[in-house]
Each structure stands twice: as C-alpha cells, then as structure tokens.
C-alpha cells in the first residue's frame, strides 16, 4: 500500500496509519518529489518536515520512503562550490531554473562530468579499514582530496584501477568485505548529516587558530578545534567579523554557512572571496572555501539542516587531515527554525517559545568541534565559530545563554562600540576565552617568551581604565592624579591603536602575531617609562607633548607588516624622549 499525505501545515506534512517510516529517514513528498525528513512517528501519524516550499501540495499525494537518513554527498567538487541547506548545488540550479529557487529538483551535489587526475594509493591484496585512503586527486590548487573508506567498512582490495582521469562516480577500487561480498568504491560516499563521523580519539587542544585580528589573537584567542560564539545585536558587525576570520584565519578549509541570513551577504562572500588572493598560496580564497547558503527566505526546514550539512562536510575534510574552520551565521536563525517547526508540531514550548530540546541540540552541534586523531592516524581539527543574533540585543535570551554553556570562547559584540565605529566591536570586558591557558605555551614558545606577560599588562591597563571611567563619569577627568590620567591615556592607545583594526587597510586587515607582540611591547614600554618619569616629577602634559602617544596609535598604519625592524626605532625613541624629560628635570 502506498503512503499518502494526510495533512499539510506549512513545512509540516503528516501521513496517517502507516508503520513504514523510521525516524530521521529521508522521504520524497508529493508528486513533485519534494525532499523531506521524518521527525515524528506514532501509531497514528508519521510527521515529516519538508525542506522545500509546500505550496501546491495536495492531500492524497504519495509519500515515498527511501530507507536511509538525510545524507551529505561527500567527494571531490565540494570545495569552492555553493550549496543550499541540503547540499544542492546552487550554481547548477540557476542553469535549470533561472534566478529563482524552484522546488522539486533532487540535483546531485557534485559535478559528475568533471574529470579528476586520480592517483590510486592501494594495490590488490591490501587490507583496508574504515578511514583508510585509497586514492587522491587535486580538488583545487590548494586542496588535495583524499578518498577514504567509509568509517564502518573493512576489507581486502580485489581491484584497483590504474592512475588516470576519472569522474566522481567511476569505480576506483573494489574491496571484499568480511562477509565475502564485494563492494565497489567510487570517489563519492554518503554520510548522515545528523551523525558525527567517527574518530580514533580526541587530542588535547593547544594550538591557536591564528586570525590576524589583534583583539582575538592576543586578548581573546581561540584554539584550533575549539568553539566560539559571536553574539551581537544588529549592526554590531557579526557578519563582518566572520568575513574577516574566513578570509584570514590559518585553517586549511573554511566552511561558511549562511543560515537564514541575507542573500546579498552570500553574494558578497562569493564575489569577494573569488577576488581576494590568499597571500600564502597566491590563489583566490574560493579555492579553500565551501559556501552553504540558506538565506532567510528559503524554506525553514532546510535552514535547520544547513548547519548539520556544513559540519558534516567539515568533518569529512578533517578526516583527510585538514584543519577546518566553520563560520555559522547565524545560529539564532537555526534555533528559530527549530522553534518554528516545534510550533507547527504543537510541542510544549519552553523559554520564549523555543523547544525544550534547544540546549541539547546546541550542545550536539558545538561538541562536533575538536582536535582529533582520525581513524587513519592523521590529525585534523574542526573549529566552530557561531554567530548569535540575540533578540533585542539582550544577551540573557535563551539562545545566547545556552550557547554560552557549550562554547569556551565568547566574543561579545557591543552596541556602543559599534556606534562609535570601534571595529571589531568586541567588548573586552564581557568577552572571555577559556583557551588562554591551553595556548599560553604556544605563544610563549613560538612568538616571544614574554608574550603572555605583555598580554596581561595590556589587560590590566584596560581594566584600570574601566575602573577609572566610573569615576570620570561622575566628576570629570581633570581631578584625577597624573598616574591615573596616564593609565587613561595609555588605555586610549590600546583601544584606538591596538584593539581597533581597520579591515579595509591593506596592512591592518591582517596582522601577524610577531607584529601584535611588538605593538604590545611599544605600548607597555611607553606606559612604564612614563610612569617612571612621573615618579621623578615629570608632568604628564610634558610627556603628552612629546607626541609619543599619538605616534603609538598610528603604528598599525605606519609600520608595514614586512618591516618589523622599524619597531626598534620606536622603542629607542621612547627611551630617549622620556629619558630626556627626566634628565632636564634633574638638571
């Protein structure tokens, strides 16, 4: 007996009186064969969320079971592509449907025509286990794709094709499974998007994801394999920050998920990334980027899926031994998709209408980040950076609060900083990173032994300022003693000269760690020298008149990234000019 549609309410469709479906199974709904997923099974009704627009569906149209969960298609051709939330290639869709997204196309995710230059790395008789590589091919100029046995498959190679040009669906090897059956393997495998790909074990987190953004790398760093949240009201620069990270962070591959956000933003990423040249490889950034675009007006259920699709793609490349950074913009839209579906199912709502399972879904997602030893003994990592769009810019709302519990790095974007056009508007008082201790050894060994000390000094100056500003707000700055005024002046240098970073300036958009460290050194040295001078009776106004503070603010523009030798002159000048003030007093 065939199963048919019993009821339709927005993206939720039900079938009555059937036991044919299993949870999270993928189904085709209606005569247009819309893609759907089973999200509830009772003896009366099977509930299905449909990933496409349900307008025009009729009661009584067939629902077709596929017997397998919603899967991501994994193989060469993912990088530099753009997909919708269920991994349908948007470029191919324009060829088929024109400028609008139409429903009912189960397009194959990858380019089946393109030929790859395949090197087969196994021979007949080799015993392979899940995760082992069997062939490689250059996918883009930056990324070598390595095909692996699906994690749950073991066996002996009975056929291996010679090296040569192959399409993704060509059989590369055949293996004999333990039960004696022979299994052909192409360059493509499928994996259910809601299930984490298996790993050998997790490794300790101790390497930073270097982003070239001073406030992040130095003050609130994130580790490779870590998870960070960027909460911020509208207009505070969440998307801008994510773009900067996607452009400059030292991951091998970026998975950028536009989840329920603006269409024009995705277009911008597409355009900008194909024009921007990665300085390390001299290739366009698209060569290492995958885009998943489920804009706010695309179907809401596919928005929910887009996050899972993105992380599954990331895990697949991690299994090849790459370091992946995921930008999820925005997880709030994903949570809202959960709320919307939950509402249609008439589930009992928890806080603000969000379903009670919101925290467990969030934790499942963020826990898929990690620095791991893969099944094939390579090491790889997935770093998740999720934007959060709190309702009414109120960080106490459920999505922000629950996210905070599952990430160890929190970059709070502040409205008043954004209004003052202080970018990135990461508020150093509200933000934190629990990775600092894990990473301190790396910074001290690889950048400079006093890196963490300098960082601490800078934090202290900022804290001191926050404290003093309370007083200044009440009585004005004039009444403060000179040493406190000095702290405020130095904090200004830190804020304007160090924390503020200009994404449109050719040198300032990405700053190497070495320069970050030297900039801190100049500021800290300026502060200490001035403090010493004050102690012997020099007036603060005389110190300010040297112009050293204004000069320190402009270091970010004045010293190019490739001429770090110039820092020596700055330090010398500080010594001399402030030293001269003390001397003149003594004389």
């Amino acid at each position, binding site marked *: 007996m065939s199963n048919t549609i*019993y009821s339709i*309410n927005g993206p939720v469709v039900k079938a009555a009186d059937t036991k044919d479906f299993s949870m999270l199974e993928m189904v085709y709904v209606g005569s247009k064969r819309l893609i759907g997923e089973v999200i509830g099974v009772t003896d009366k009704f099977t509930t299905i969320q449909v990933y496409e627009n349900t307008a*025009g569906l009729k009661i009584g149209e067939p629902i077709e079971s596929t017997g397998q969960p919603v899967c991501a298609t994994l193989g060469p051709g993912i990088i530099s592509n*753009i997909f919708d939330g269920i991994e349908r290639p*948007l*470029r191919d869709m324009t060829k088929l449907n024109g400028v609008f997204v139409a429903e009912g196309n189960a397009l194959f995710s990858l380019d089946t025509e393109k030929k790859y230059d395949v090197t087969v790395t196994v021979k007949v008789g080799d015993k392979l286990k899940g995760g082992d590589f069997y062939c490689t091919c250059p996918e883009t100029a930056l990324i070598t794709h390595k095909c692996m046995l699906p994690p749950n498959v073991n066996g002996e190679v009975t056929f291996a094709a010679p090296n040569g040009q192959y399409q993704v669906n060509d059989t590369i090897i055949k293996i004999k499974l333990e039960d004696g059956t022979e299994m052909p393997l192409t360059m493509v495998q499928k994996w259910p998007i809601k299930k984490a790909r298996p790993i050998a074990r997790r490794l300790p987190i101790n390497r930073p994801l270097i982003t070239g953004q001073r406030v992040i790398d130095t003050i609130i760093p994130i580790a490779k394999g870590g998870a960070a949240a960027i909460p911020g009201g*509208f*207009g505070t620069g969440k998307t801008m920050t994510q773009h900067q990270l996607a452009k400059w962070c030292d991951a091998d591959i970026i998975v950028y998920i536009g989840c329920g956000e603006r269409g024009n933003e995705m277009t911008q990423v597409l355009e900008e990334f194909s024009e921007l040249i990665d300085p390390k490889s001299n290739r366009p950034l698209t060569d290492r980027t995958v885009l998943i675009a489920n804009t706010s007006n695309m179907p809401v259920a596919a928005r929910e899926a887009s996050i899972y699709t993105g992380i599954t793609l990331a895990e697949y490349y991690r299994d090849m031994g790459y370091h992946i950074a995921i930008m999820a913009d925005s997880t709030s839209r994903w949570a809202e998709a959960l709320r919307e579906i939950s*509402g249609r199912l008439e589930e009992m709502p928890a806080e603000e209408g969000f379903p009670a399972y919101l925290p467990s879904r969030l934790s499942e997602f963020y826990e898929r980040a990690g620095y791991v030893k893969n099944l094939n003994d390579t090491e790889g990592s997935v770093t998740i950076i999720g934007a959060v769009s709190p309702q009414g810019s109120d960080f106490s709302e459920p999505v922000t609060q629950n996210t905070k519990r599952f990430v160890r790095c929190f970059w709070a974007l502040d409205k008043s900083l954004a209004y*003052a056009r202080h970018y990135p508007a990461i508020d150093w008082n509200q933000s934190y990173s629990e990775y600092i201790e894990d990473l301190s050894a790396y910074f001290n060994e690889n950048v400079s032994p006093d890196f963490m000390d300098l960082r601490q000094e800078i934090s202290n100056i900022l804290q001191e300022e926050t404290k003093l500003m309370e007083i200044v707000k009440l009585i004005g700055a004039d009444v403060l003693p000179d040493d406190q005024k000095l702290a405020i002046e130095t904090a200004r240098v830190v804020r304007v000269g160090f924390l503020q970073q200009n994404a449109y300036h050719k040198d300032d958009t990405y700053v190497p760690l070495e320069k970050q460290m030297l900039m801190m050194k100049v500021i800290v040295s300026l502060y200490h020298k001035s403090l010493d001078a004050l102690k012997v009776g020099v007036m603060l106004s005389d110190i300010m008149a040297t112009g050293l503070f204004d000069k320190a603010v402009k270091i970010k523009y004045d010293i190019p990234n490739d001429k770090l030798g110039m820092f020596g002159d700055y330090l010398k000048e500080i010594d001399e000019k402030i030293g001269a003030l003390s001397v003149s007093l003594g004389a």
Partner: protein
Amino acid sequence: MSLQYVGLKDINGPLVALEGVSGVAYDEIARLRLNDGTERIGRVVELEGDKAILQIFEGTNGISLENTRTIFSGKPLEIALAPEMLGRVFNGAGKPIDGLGPVFPEKMGDVNGQALNPVARQYPRNYIHTGISSIDALMTLIRGQKLPIFSGSGLSHNKLAVQIVKQAKLTGEGSANTMFAKSTPKGGTDAANIGSTGDFAIVFAAMGVQNDVANYFRRSFEETGASERVCMFLNLSSDPIIERLLTPLCALTAAEYLAFEKNMHILVIMTDMTSYAEALREFSSSKGEIPGRKGYPGYLYSNLASLYERAGVVEGSTGSVTQIPILTMPNDDITHPIPDLTAYITEGQIVFDRDLDQRGVYPGLSVLLSLSRLMKDGIGEGYTRADHQAVANQLFAAYAKVQDARSLASVIGEEELSEADRAYMRFGRLFEDNFLNQGFDENRSMDETLDLGWDLLCTLPKNELDRIDEKLLDEKYDPARAARFL
C-alpha cells in the same frame, strides 16, 4: 465544470473550515460565493484529511455556516501583471480600485514569489543620491538595498519618504536626472513614455495606514509629477486585516515583474510594517498557533524575510528592486520584535530621534543608531568621492564622543568640561543644526554634503580627528573652514 462545496463547518475570526473536500492544494485560492451574490476570496492555510482551513481576505462578516458556496481555483493567488500597472491604484489583494477597469495582463504572477538564488544575485553597488545630507553621507542608499525607516508615531517619516522619492537620482551611468523631473509630460503610460522618463518607477504599498496618509502620498506623487510612474496598493486602516497580509506580496510581485522582466529601477515603499506584523499576529492567534515573543508568531522572522529578501539586483536583468519599508516602533522601542527582526534582515536602518524632531531638526535622524550596510561598497572613488568613507567615519566617531561629553555635562555642568569636551559639545550642536537639519525642498549635492562635513570637522582640534589618514587630513584640514559657524 468546477465543484462547489455548500456551507462551512466552522468560522473563527478570519478563518473558516470546510469538511469533506478533496483534491485541494495547500496555499491555493478559493472563491466563496455568498447567497447575496457577493464573492470573497480565501486562501488554504491548513489541510487535514478531508478538512481545509481557509483564510478569508475580506473578513468573515455576514458569512454563516450555510450561506456560502466555495469553489477552489486550483491555483495560488495570482495577479495580472503588465507595464500598464503604473499609474494605477489597487486594493491590497491586487484588484483595481480606481474605476479604470481591470489591467490587461501580459502575464499572471504568483504573489508568493520564490526565493532568489544567491548565485543569481548581483552584489548591489550603485548608490542612489537622495539629496539628504545625513542619508547620503552617513547611511548611503544603494540600488537593490532594503533600507527601512524606523520611526515613531507623530514623526516625519512620511515626509522623508516623499522627499526621497522626489529627489532620488541615480548616478554613475550617465543618468544624472532626478527620478521624476517636474517637467514630466502628463499623459498615458505608453511604452514610449516609459523610455523617455528613464527606467524609474515606484511601487507603493500601504498597509493599515489612515486615509489621510494615503492621500498625502498620492498628492505628493502628483505634485512631483510622479503619479504616472507609481503603482499603488492600498490597504487602509479600515480595510480587512487579512488583506493586509497580501498587500506587500502583491506589491513586490509587481515590483519584481517591472524590475526583472521590464528592466526598470523600482523603489518600493512599504508603510506601515508594524500594521502588517500586527495583522500577522491576529491571523496567527485566530489559527490557535503557539505565540513567540510578545504574542507574535514564531515565524515572524521568516515571514518578514520573505518580503524583505525580495529586494535586489539579479543577473540577466538591468533592473533593480530597492525597498524602503517604513515602520513605527511601538513606544519608540527599537528592541520591540518588529524593528528588531526587521533590522536583522534588512541591510541597515534609518532611525528617527524624537528629541531631535521635537527640537525642529528635519529630518531628525539618529545618526548613531542608523546604518547602511551596503554603503562601504558603493561609495568612495568612482562612486561618490574618494574621501567619503573617511569623512563618514570621522563624523560618526566625533558624534559618538558628543554623546559622552553631553552625559558628562549633564552631571558636572558644561563649564567644568575639559577644552576638548567643550569643542565636542559645540560640534554636536553645529552638526545637528547645519548637517542633519535641512529643508524639505533642499536638495544637496554630494560635494555640498561632504564639504559641509569637512567644515564641521574643522571646528574640532586637528589631533581629535583620528579616523582620517594623515595625508588627507593635512590636505583638507583648515581651521578657517570652521569660521562661518563661529
């Protein structure tokens, strides 16, 4: 021959339920014929077994369980599309109400629209000159952008919208004419005329606005000679509330058709989005849905996005859809769900400030709260002027400091302020009175606006201008420029 269903099962607010139906499609349109001969339009919003729930656009007044016959059309709601829509007035459901008869359709368009494929979009880059200093310099409007106006009751948002329409002009493609020259020849909107007045048109959607307001817009369009280039969809505050949910859909369908198929530049003005969202809340609660924040349905974000995302520029067409939705913030609260969700979807916002408005500053825009996200790519060399970004950054930063100085002054008094803070206090006043404030008929060029910005910045000490490149500053900074203010 079509099947007619006699009678209804249930009536609840704007919703009616039918039983025993078959072959009905989700989202399709049905006609309900009443015994008195009148007809109403309904849309299928839920299907369960042989039961269908319909939303009646004109309201359920006078409908009983027995006096109707329902005919399902088998199609989603479609409106007639043709270039002749310009100059016409329609109701919220796309029916002509100006007594000029139906529009002869060139094609029929499904009002629900479909999502634009992000790959097919072009990133908006050309700016629209509005002649209003605060907007042009600090929150530049870009062709293909959606830039809402957040206002409050009693503020001059309508006046501003009219002024934008009146003065808006495109630059960069040799077409330095205003969208509607006053000398536009009156007459029919035949194809030749469309060619001669440039490819501009306005689609105006009024949702739940008062008669007076709708008339104000209509009169203003006439005065500027624009009325033949305007297509109006009116759902006034006395009109049925469910029809309000269709108004922007019809308007945007018309806009997309004119822009992407007829290659015109369409400016869509939608007012008032707050009434729209309230209609949605009413609809949702009569359907018995679980409410989200402040009683609005959980899908308010997706629903608003399905409207706002219909702005843009697409490949294969030289037209564009630019949206200026207007909404009144309930109780001037920008964190209210409607402005909050809107600003998360739109590419920036223009926010009115009641204090400035009451001081007589027109347009009294809150510079710090306002933002245009697409501005950075549509200004500067080749678009506006090379120093635009620098001036804008510095004006923002300086005006932010004005707020700090003012709050300090309110505690310790202005006399006790430091030299620098006093300079900021002065800058703040001059900025508001000369830069923000401008007449309804004053159309400032980009050069005038940016030079005015420089003049004002020169009232500050040079070392305070830390957002501007040293070289540019040396070239432009001249205390004498400030003389005319002091």
